[in-house]
């Protein structure tokens, strides 16, 4: 079936540094969403992309539907960035979101 492969599964960064998360798709996706799940379990919308690149503060995301991947870049990481990050993509065929397995991000002082 349709799959979303998210990596890495865990990431530890020192404050002020940055890194990238990636999701690969095994089928054509029309859009991707990125979420941060905080310590209370709430899913916070970070980005919705049907194509191209969006930037919001220290976060930047790219979606390449032809090459079937999306990335989330974090720069100048802060302690409040800790949490689990999920990508979720919508296939052409329907409206439901198919989820990556998440990246647990820990920011160290």
């Amino acid at each position, binding site marked *: 079936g349709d799959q979303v492969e998210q990596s890495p599964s865990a990431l530890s960064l020192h404050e002020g540094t940055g890194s990238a998360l990636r999701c690969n798709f095994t089928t054509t996706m029309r859009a991707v969403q990125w979420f941060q799940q905080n310590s*209370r379990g709430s899913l916070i919308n970070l980005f919705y992309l049907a194509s191209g690149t969006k930037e919001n503060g220290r976060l930047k995301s790219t979606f390449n539907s032809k090459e079937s991947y999306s990335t989330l870049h974090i720069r100048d990481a802060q302690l409040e960035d800790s949490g689990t990050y999920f990508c979720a993509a919508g296939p052409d065929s329907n*409206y439901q979101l198919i989820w990556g397995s998440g990246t647990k991000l820990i920011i160290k002082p």
Partner: protein
Amino acid sequence: NAGVIQTPRHKVTGKGQEATLWCEPISGHSAVFWYRQTIVQGLEFLTYFRNQAPIDDSGMPKERFSAQMPNQSHSTLKIQSTQPQDSAVYLCASSLDWGLGGREQYFGPGTRLTVL
């Protein structure tokens, strides 16, 4: 805008009892989704309504689970004869369902169901 509202936030039931979970979508959103999150399975799609009509329930367990949307302001997910494996966080989401970015889904805080 209050966002998607889910009640209760936590529910504990005994095995075999019924559980009803409530969701109030964002006003003006015509699409409502239910998902389930567990440690083992991660996030899984359950069912989807559009303009209150059930569109896709392919993720719903065939027995004991049912969902309804009697009006545009709320949806319910009912689990009959709950089992310990039903323990999960149940998430409701809504979206505009049209236009540029209209399919962006917004999530409620979830209902944590624990079946003893």
